[in-house]
């Protein structure tokens, strides 16, 4: 027997968490609602998480809500471990009908009740962080610690941030006001009520590399603003979002709401559903992370309100530095982490052909290249450490791209396979570095997703900045870094950031990597260039997920 929990209890239980998150989005200072240290979860948590993950393998994964005929098992671990988790194939009509029906009760609930239920689900997801880490690792190829942190607490923080923004935005308008306009002989007195209503059904389309981190903001922002959510996972990364939906459904049920408010839409390679769902009139919102091609199609063709994070070409401009070794080590880690499969990983490193100034001395272009390659070689020298940095390659397409690039001119560091000490079948590849000239735009002026870095030889720093700006404007960019000790170059780099509408990092030589994005403080994607039209998370990401319906009643 299960005992229903009054939904208001969740709201009370998590009020402090919500208040602190709301304060954090205003102050932008460090805050985290969920610990990133594995030790914080207790001694038994790792073993329990492993057991929970392993119990999922080779079995059907059944959730509440309607499903069609048959099962789909499309995931393949980049580490070579058999998964064979079978998910019911979605029936689109039934899924949409169930979501519409479930939304009525949910939309009628007070804002604080919806927020409380969402926060309770999030806290329960947090308790599953070790299980989630295995699920993320074996679907995306992330190394375990990255999968734990990025797939667990960091993703949960992004969800908490979205909830905080949603509550903030919905709380801007009072529920009721007595409006009095001075008039003769009597003032005009109107009672006005304002009701937040959801837009409709949200379709969240997940990606193959960061299925939770990228999907949670949209899922939770839509839920708290009263919408239903259909989660369409990437066929390669279903399990992390299936576990997520399962936990949210359990929480909804316990709070007395219809669990079909949040459902999973799994498809088959023969009949992909993302386009079909996206064109249905019942879909009012779409959250999308993935390739530029489909993201742009959604932006152009979907009738729903579309929030995208697509791909881009991230640039590094090296002009001068006071800490050459620190710069190279920092870049080496940025380029190597998760084999360049982060949307924030730099791709093009622009270096003047006459070299750079380092601590007052000129360093030749070739020596900068040698230094960067040396830093990567040093970082990845020990194979057991290297695999924990590199992770595994998520998709066959990335593997093919790397192999193709290995055969091209200018490669000064070939990508080679590394044997994983625990997973002999793992698809591990080291970073590839190629030197190209600024004139070779067709080589570097497009996204080369994966462990591929181009060091672009430019005429001077001005050309470096011009090319980086053009790449951000035409191809999109999510991150940018400049290394300079010259204030006038820094000012030009700020112009690059503003014109390219890309967030800028300056002289990173320590542990902070340009790849990293901290919830509550860093805006992930600006929404201002082709890399995406939304930002995680700002008010614009949540404010249009609901509308305000007003009722005016004259009073005596």
């Amino acid at each position, binding site marked *: 027997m299960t005992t229903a929990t009054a939904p208001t209890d969740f709201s009370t239980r998590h009020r402090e968490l919500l208040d602190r998150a709301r304060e954090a989005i205003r102050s932008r200072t460090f805050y985290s609602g969920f610990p990133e240290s594995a030790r914080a979860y207790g001694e038994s948590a790792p073993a329990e998480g492993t057991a929970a993950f392993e119990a999922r393998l080779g079995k059907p994964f059944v959730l509440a809500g309607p499903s069609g005929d048959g099962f789909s098992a499309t995931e393949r671990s980049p580490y070579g471990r058999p998964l064979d988790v079978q998910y019911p194939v979605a029936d689109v009509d039934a899924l949409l009908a169930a979501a519409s029906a479930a939304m009525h009760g949910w939309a009628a609930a007070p804002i604080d009740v919806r927020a409380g239920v969402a926060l309770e689900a999030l806290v329960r997801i947090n308790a599953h962080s070790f299980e989630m880490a295995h699920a993320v690792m074996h679907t995306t190829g992330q190394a375990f610690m990255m999968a734990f942190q990025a797939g667990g607490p960091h993703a949960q923080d992004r969800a908490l941030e979205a909830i905080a923004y949603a509550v903030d935005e919905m709380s801007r308008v009072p529920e009721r006001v007595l409006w009095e306009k001075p008039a003769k002989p009597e003032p005009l007195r109107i009672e006005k009520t304002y009701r937040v209503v959801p837009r409709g059904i949200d379709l969240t389309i997940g990606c193959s590399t960061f299925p939770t981190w990228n999907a949670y903001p949209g899922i939770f922002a839509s839920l708290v603003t009263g919408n239903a959510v259909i989660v369409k996972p990437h066929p390669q990364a279903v399990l992390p979002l299936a576990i997520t939906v399962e936990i949210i459904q359990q929480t909804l049920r316990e709070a007395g709401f219809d669990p079909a408010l949040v459902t999973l839409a799994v498809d088959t390679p023969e009949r992909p559903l993302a386009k079909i769902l996206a064109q249905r009139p019942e879909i009012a919102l779409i959250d999308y992370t993935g390739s530029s091609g489909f993201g742009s199609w959604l932006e152009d063709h979907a009738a729903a309100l579309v929030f995208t994070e697509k791909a881009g070409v991230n640039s590094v401009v090296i002009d001068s530095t006071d800490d*050459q*070794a620190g710069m*190279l*080590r920092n870049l080496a880690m940025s380029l190597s982490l998760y084999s360049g499969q982060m949307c924030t990983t730099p791709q093009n490193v622009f270096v003047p052909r006459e*070299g750079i100034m*380092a*601590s007052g*001395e*000129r*360093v*030749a272009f*070739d*020596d900068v*290249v*040698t*230094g960067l*390659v*040396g*830093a*990567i*070689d*040093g970082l*990845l*020298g*020990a194979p057991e450490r290297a695999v924990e940095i590199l992770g595994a390659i998520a998709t066959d397409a990335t593997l093919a791209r790397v192999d193709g690039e290995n055969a091209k001119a*200018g490669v*000064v*560091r070939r990508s080679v396979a590394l044997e994983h000490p625990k997973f002999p079948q793992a698809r591990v590849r080291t970073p590839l570095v190629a*030197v190209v000239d600024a004139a070779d735009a067709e080589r570097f002026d497009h996204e080369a997703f994966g462990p591929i870095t181009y060091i672009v030889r430019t005429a001077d720093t001005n050309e470096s900045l011009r090319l980086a700006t053009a790449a951000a404007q035409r191809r999109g960019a999510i991150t940018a870094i400049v290394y300079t000790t010259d204030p006038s170059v820094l000012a030009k780099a700020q112009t690059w950031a503003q014109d390219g509408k890309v967030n800028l990092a300056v002289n990173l030589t320590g542990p902070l990597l340009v790849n990293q994005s901290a919830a509550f403080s860093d805006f992930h994607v600006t929404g201002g260039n082709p890399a995406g039209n939304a930002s995680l998370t700002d008010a614009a990401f949540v404010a249009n997920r609901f509308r305000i319906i007003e009722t005016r009643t004259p009073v005596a």
Partner: protein
Amino acid sequence: MDAACFPNLTGEAVDGTPFVGPADFAPGRTIAMTAFALESRAEVESWGPYIDALVRSRSDVRARLFAVLGAGAKMMRGVILGGLRSALTAPELRASTVVVFTDVDAFCRALGVTDRKTLGVFLVEEDGRIAWRGSGAYTAAAGAALTAALS
């Protein structure tokens, strides 16, 4: 103009052994390769089988690769040597790869090198005199010429 002698230089092998030329060319003869950019790596690798066979068959010949970088790059010494130690795991490769931080323009002038993109290959006597010089990737003709110079 081709130089008669290999320039004086000071460097450090990847295994940490200091190298001071010309004194450390002795004893015997040295096949010295000079690389100024990583783009020469393929050319270096192309000579590998020939040189491996040569040094195994002749105890009076050794091979060294001089990775020549600018003096300004010395601030990256730890990064570069650390990277090379990771990339070169065989002790004989670590011992025979020497990193030199120097005035590259002056070094090239002294050696008579005009093309820094191309690998330089030199047969150096133990007193530093250059007995033979070639450049670029290994070819059968280049190998035969070097073999002839050694005999």
